[in-house]
């Protein structure tokens, strides 16, 4: 009988923690809405400060959480390659599905609160404003990824699943562009996201390029043989 791995032993602990961490921004946002509306008594630590422009703040919370989760999913492979620990892979699907959920929330706040269901203005935005076009495209691209996130889908698609899910690179890039383009002047936050994304995608590019070089050089191939 194979020994129980550390990961398996503590799964009962870290899995719920991951869900709590992913749900925290949503809970704080809901708490903030209830607190600001005077509905019920919400303790201060459970309520995000929505300020005097709550709709904008809610858009920001949902949008930044989407980007944060996308970046974490992109960090899983580099971390696995650095630490040799494959357990992080189990988390990636959870994080990815939450990223999609927050992207939907972000879009729902935009349609329902920011534009207050003004379909005329929404349609104009969707084809006139570059940052909205890019953001909406990223959201649309997330849909097939969310739909094929199940084990059954992975079995059905096999190699094509990996090709499809590489779309996350484009999605993350479009998401950062969406944030960058709409920023009025102070680009310090979008720059941080862009730097992290460059790091995470650059890592993959470097690994890919290095393994191709390795395959091509005869002396390295000889070294690789036991």
């Amino acid at each position, binding site marked *: 009988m194979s020994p129980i791995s550390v990961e398996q032993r503590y799964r009962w602990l870290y899995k719920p923690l991951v869900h709590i961490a992913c749900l925290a921004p949503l809970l704080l946002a809901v708490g903030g809405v209830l607190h600001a509306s005077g509905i019920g008594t919400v303790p201060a630590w459970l309520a995000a400060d929505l300020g005097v422009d709550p709709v904008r703040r809610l858009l920001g919370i949902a949008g930044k959480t989407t980007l944060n989760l996308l970046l974490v999913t992109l960090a899983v492979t580099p971390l696995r390659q650095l630490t040799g620990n494959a357990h992080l892979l189990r988390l990636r699907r959870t994080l990815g599905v939450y990223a999609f959920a927050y992207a939907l929330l972000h879009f729902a706040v935009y349609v329902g609160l920011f534009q207050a269901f003004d379909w005329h203005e929404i349609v104009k935005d969707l084809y006139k404003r570059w940052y909205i076009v890019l953001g909406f495209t990223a959201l649309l691209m997330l849909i097939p990824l969310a739909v094929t996130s199940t084990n059954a889908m992975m079995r059905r698609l096999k190699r094509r699943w990996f090709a499809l899910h590489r779309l996350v690179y484009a999605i993350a890039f479009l998401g950062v562009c969406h944030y960058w*383009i709409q920023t009025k002047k102070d680009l310090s936050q979008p720059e941080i996201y862009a730097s992290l994304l460059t790091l995470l995608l650059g890592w993959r590019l470097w690994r890919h390029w290095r393994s191709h070089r390795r395959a091509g050089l005869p002396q390295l191939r000889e070294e690789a043989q036991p």
Partner: protein
Amino acid sequence: MLIHKCDDIRPSEITSEAVYRNRRSVVAGLLGASAAVAFPGRPARAAAPVPNLKYTVNRQYQVADPLNTWEEITGYNNYYELGTSKTDPAANAGTLKPRPWTVEIAGECEVRGRFNLEDILKPHPLEERVYRLRCVEAWSMVIPWTGFPMKDFLAAFKPNSKAKYVEFTTLHDPRQLPGQLDNVLEWPYVEGLRIDEATHPLAFMVVGVYGRELPGQNGAPLRTMAPWKYGFKNGKSIVKVRFTEKQPANTWAIANAREYGFYANVNPTVDHPRWSQATERRIGGGLFAKRVPTQMFNGYADQVAGMYAGMDLRRYF
């Protein structure tokens, strides 16, 4: 003299004497409802701090929409010299010392030199005007400013015939305005108006809000207000007023000439290159408020449109 008739005021908007005399107990009763971000139409004036300036209310300049609260007006600001987030200025305004304050008057005028703020303000009785403020970012507020006409302010310095524009310069001192250590914009902040705009009856020199001296984050101790233009046209913490022959180079146009011009008249038909200007979000409207359609010249078209007759507003934005 043409007296502009303003029929915006409803009798229900005029504070009854009983409420006025008991305003402190009214405030105490309202503290329970103070967290009502989600509910518009809350009694903002009764909840504002007690005035510390002597002023009269100018009934000619009122707005039908509800006033924004003191918290909103002093807690949501674009003042990059004190930080680039909306809440930074209120948090960082402690370093700004509005007294002692001198204003330099220069350029094409007879009365030039450095003057104490008190001496400059002395001849001008204060009045309150309620103006709409429309930011280029597509949000807006309704604010009861305390000040006096810019026309009177400028006339005291006797500008000569070469004065075609007025340039307003903000304080440049990173010890007082630590955001200036960061070069997000070129400092000092410079803005300007054409001389007919600056001497228009609507143009206002502001020293207070809700009858209270301006807090640092709102541009203490002296700022301008041209309500038919986007908010960035209004310089805060003014230290220099210069009459010029040539159009001043205003800071936002220097930062990005494609997106920000000199005239910056509120115009729902001319979009910002990256976002629409057709609608705006009224701060304090709450979570479920619909966006407000932006009005030409921020609703002051009948008073100011004449200055721009024949001008291509798409080119001179």
